[in-house]
């Protein structure tokens, strides 16, 4: 039987936590409601967290925008290419680093080689100049290659691999397999939970990245979605000069503010969609990966 005082504490505690979630969701719901409300209702300040005068006109406006769709496609290309390269290279680096120093003498050297890049940042300008000099400016490679080895992810995979029993490797060698085969047939299947976490982290990172697109892409039609959204929010989102006729007609229903809100949500949607699946993995993947082997 719980004491009265303790039961009171439990209720207050749960109430405070629920309040925290409300505070957390409130700004997001407010902007979501604005995106579904009419121009008039929004400028009259009637919208809080529920759409007033429900309309899809702002979304209609967003999807009629050619540059929005082009940048959406750039983002999808970037995510596929970027996550693919991140995963292949991270696994290829993590596997050798997961070996014991007594079996693989150079391990410590290699590990420092990669970890040092986490400790000392080369800086914005030199990095920018190298991208320029390697001739990948204004191409999708500028968004993918400079960050092709996320060292933090490598360490997560490495630590996960180190929790696997060493006997696995030994028996694989007994069967005559080499390192490549052992990695492919023994380690990869067992590392899947950690790989799923890391792949999702890398996916989110590529989807969200905007700064590289801004500095490496010369033409706006090469912008990934986040960069495009950033440029819209930073400047006026309704540049009258390059507006299509259809968009101009919509202006009587859509305001700068509702269109912005809709754009924010379309960009956030992919993250919201994968989040429920993702959530199951990341906690476990993170916690196991941080345990030292």
């Amino acid at each position, binding site marked *: 039987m719980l004491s009265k005082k*303790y039961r009171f504490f*439990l209720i207050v*505690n*749960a109430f405070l*936590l629920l309040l925290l*979630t409300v505070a*957390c969701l*409130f*700004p*997001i719901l*407010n*902007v979501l409601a*604005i995106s579904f409300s009419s121009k008039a209702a929004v*400028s009259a*300040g009637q919208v809080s967290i529920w759409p007033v005068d429900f309309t899809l006109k702002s979304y209609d406006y967003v999807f009629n925008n050619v540059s929005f769709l082009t940048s959406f496609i750039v983002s999808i290309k970037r995510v596929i290419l970027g996550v693919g390269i991140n995963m292949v*290279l991270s696994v*290829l*680096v993590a*596997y*050798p680093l997961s*070996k014991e120093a007594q079996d*693989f003498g150079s391990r410590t050297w*290699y590990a420092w*080689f*990669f*970890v040092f*890049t986490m*400790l*000392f*940042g*080369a*800086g*914005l*300008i*030199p990095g*920018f*100049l*190298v991208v*320029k000099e*390697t001739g990948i400016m204004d191409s999708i490679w500028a968004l993918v*290659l*400079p960050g*092709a080895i996320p060292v933090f992810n490598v360490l997560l995979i490495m630590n996960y691999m180190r929790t696997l029993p060493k006997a696995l490797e030994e028996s694989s*060698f007994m069967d005559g397999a080499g*390192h*490549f085969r052992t990695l492919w047939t023994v380690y990869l299947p067992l590392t899947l939970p950690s790989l799923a976490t890391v792949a999702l982290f890398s996916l989110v990172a590529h989807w969200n990245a*905007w*700064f590289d697109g801004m500095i490496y892409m010369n033409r706006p039609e090469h912008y990934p979605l986040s960069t495009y959204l950033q440029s819209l*929010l*930073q400047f006026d989102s309704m540049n009258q000069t390059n507006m299509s006729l259809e968009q101009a007609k919509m202006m009587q229903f859509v305001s700068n*503010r509702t269109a912005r*809100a809709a754009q*924010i949500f379309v960009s*956030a949607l992919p993250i919201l969609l994968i989040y429920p699946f*993702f*959530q199951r993995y990341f*906690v476990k993947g*993170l*916690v196991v990966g*941080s345990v030292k082997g």
Partner: protein
Amino acid sequence: MGTRRRFRRMKRNIPLHVMMIPGIIIVLIYCYIPMIGNVIAFQDFTPLMGFAKAEWVGLDNFQYMMELPSFYQVVWNTVFISIMKIVSGLVAPITVALMLNEVRKSFIKRYVQTVIYMPHFFSWVILGGIVVDILSPSEGLINQIIKAVGFQPISFLSDNTWFPYVMVITNEWKEVGFSTIIYLAALTSIDPTQYEAAVIDGAGRWKQTWHVTLPGIRPTIILLACLSLGNVLNGGFDQVFNMYSPVVYESGDILDTLVYRIGLVDNNYSVATAVGLVKSVVSLVLIGAGYGLAYRFAKYRIF
């Protein structure tokens, strides 16, 4: 060990070296070459001339940096914002983790976790867009509430007294939930018999929290506090860049935004590199010290 066996193992390890080649090439090109590229901080570099022909100017760029009227203000802004973020980034997640730990209904716990982890996965472009909207002095929701209660609207994002605090609070909004994960993991590893022993000694809930729970997660707290030392010069570029404007440079301009503007807006590559290099070197020392302390107090190793 016989040379023969050693040789055999070396031969078997060749694939391990081969596997690393692509990764090493990428890191050499995009991390180590830029590190060497920092030499342009000591040159009068222009893109047309290139490294090789640029004139060496010694410490001129650093002197120019020190003489920038805003330099000390920017350093102060950076340290002020980041230290507030570091402190709140320790206190808030620990509090929330302790509160979550007391929840008995698992569906409440799961719901709270699902909601508060979420903002971590949105970019500052998205969250910045939301913050700019709700804080707008004329139409934003927050100021509508302030006006409804009978106060004057506050332009949070163009007011130098408010701007740094808005950075700290919105940063907590994004990160507090995600940061609880590591504390919650630490909480589950506390031995339940310690609580039983405390109950036998007559300890109530508060005493249990104070004498069992907090000491139980102390190594984790110390570890994260040490590791956060490396962030003292990180004001949070993505966040500030998406919310600031020239009117709040006085309180919100940080080292990274300054480097960006000097380098890529004004195309003054050498000075920007000099500022960036100072930041990187000081950060390296701080990170080193942080890892050193973490190793000493929590036996933490990076790999």
